[in-house]
């Protein structure tokens, strides 16, 4: 049992079928960045704390720095590259731009994906819910106020959609 197997992992990546030949110990962030050239997820703390490496797996945020690539077999992974297109941005991306909710941009992919997942579960969150949900996404430019404003703007639209569908 000493020779370590290489394995094939097949999953959905940004709505397209994907597969990669990996070692069991490989981390999702490295497979996304190195095998697929998707550099939106950033490695920063490497501890599950900062959220710069956030991607969505089956709609929920995960720290790709601390997730085995083997664990996404059969699941659906969404990275920032899979959200919107330069011609048609996702509403979350558009709101971040309108509110100037970024400075250096390092935390932005993780922040946008976390917001995406929050709004999917709760289209019109309160400010308290937004702050609570984003607690694990750290911005060192201290741009939180504009981020919260962008999400609250989306929340207002979510509330309108709820009342007049």
């Amino acid at each position, binding site marked *: *049992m000493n020779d*370590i*197997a290489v*394995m094939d992992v097949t999953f959905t990546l940004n709505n397209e079928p994907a597969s990669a030949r990996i*070692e*069991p*110990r*490989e*981390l999702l962030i*490295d497979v996304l960045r190195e095998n697929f050239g998707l550099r939106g997820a950033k490695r920063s703390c*490497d*501890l*599950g*704390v900062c*959220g710069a490496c*956030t991607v969505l797996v089956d709609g*929920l*945020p*995960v*720290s790709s720095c*601390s*997730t*085995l690539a*083997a*664990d996404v077999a059969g699941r659906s992974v969404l990275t920032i590259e899979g959200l919107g297109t330069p011609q048609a941005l996702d509403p979350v991306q558009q709101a971040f731009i309108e509110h100037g909710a970024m400075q250096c941009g390092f935390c932005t992919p993780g922040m946008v994906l*976390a917001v995406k*997942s929050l709004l999917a579960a709760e289209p019109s969150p309160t400010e308290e819910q937004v702050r*609570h*949900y984003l*607690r*694990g*996404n750290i911005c060192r430019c201290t741009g939180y106020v504009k981020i919260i404003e962008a999400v609250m703007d989306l929340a207002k639209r979510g509330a309108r959609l709820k009342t007049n569908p």
Partner: protein
Amino acid sequence: MLPRRFNLHRPDRIEDAVALLAEHGDDASPYAGGTELLIAMKARVLSYAHIVDLKGIAALRGVSARSDGGLIIGALTTHHELANHSLVLERLPAYALLSANVANIRVRAAGTLGGNLCFAEPHADPPAMLCALNAELVLAGPGGERRMLLAEFILGELSTARATGEVLVRIEVPGLPAGTRAGYRAFGHLERPAVGVAAVALPLGKGFDWRLRVGSICGRPTALAGLEKAMRGLPEADALAVLAEGAEQAAAAVEADDDIRGSAEYKRHLVGVLARRAARAALGMEALAA
């Protein structure tokens, strides 16, 4: 850093996981959400030649009702699932709230209750409340299943009564008498709580039989036994007055060390504050059982 190389096993039955763990002994580790294990393996504080992924075992999943009004929680249930599960919200809303406040959304989405209890990192939220609720564990090993109280399972920092090769199957929370209330409050300025206090109040005469358990501060949850006794059976306002008066003194007896989360003195101060807040939260919440 990458973890050291390992073989990944993916059994889909408890028996197969137990057999793999028995075969490889100390060279193998169970693996659930990985929120503790992978971080330790990346830092190479821990390494194993064999990782036994439990996530494919359906029998370790799900939350169901115990016939006495309690809950049966599969070891793989995540904090996020516990925070949102209709049965938990109905029968133990204070525990759903505790789960919603664990770590951050990514840790809650991946981290399991089983992994939390088996790792026995003292700076954790579930143990104090689950001990106050008299939770029991069911473990499966080569000789079959055994059952034990969570309070006896946690031996100290990173140390449990789990034998090498045993798998935690489920956590059972016994049903509570009608009118039981519960609350939990924690505080820390880093990741993970510095101190957390759980208060469970079971109806007794004109007041309650109180269980006050302090978590995170030392190796295992500790009862504030003197206060529990002094508050026993008193009407709400009197019990809260006894608590306000006696909390500082009760906290002084709790084992605590100076560390990055604060001095022992500061943490004991938190015990007093959080005990009062947890008790008030318990009294402010709807009754847990109808």
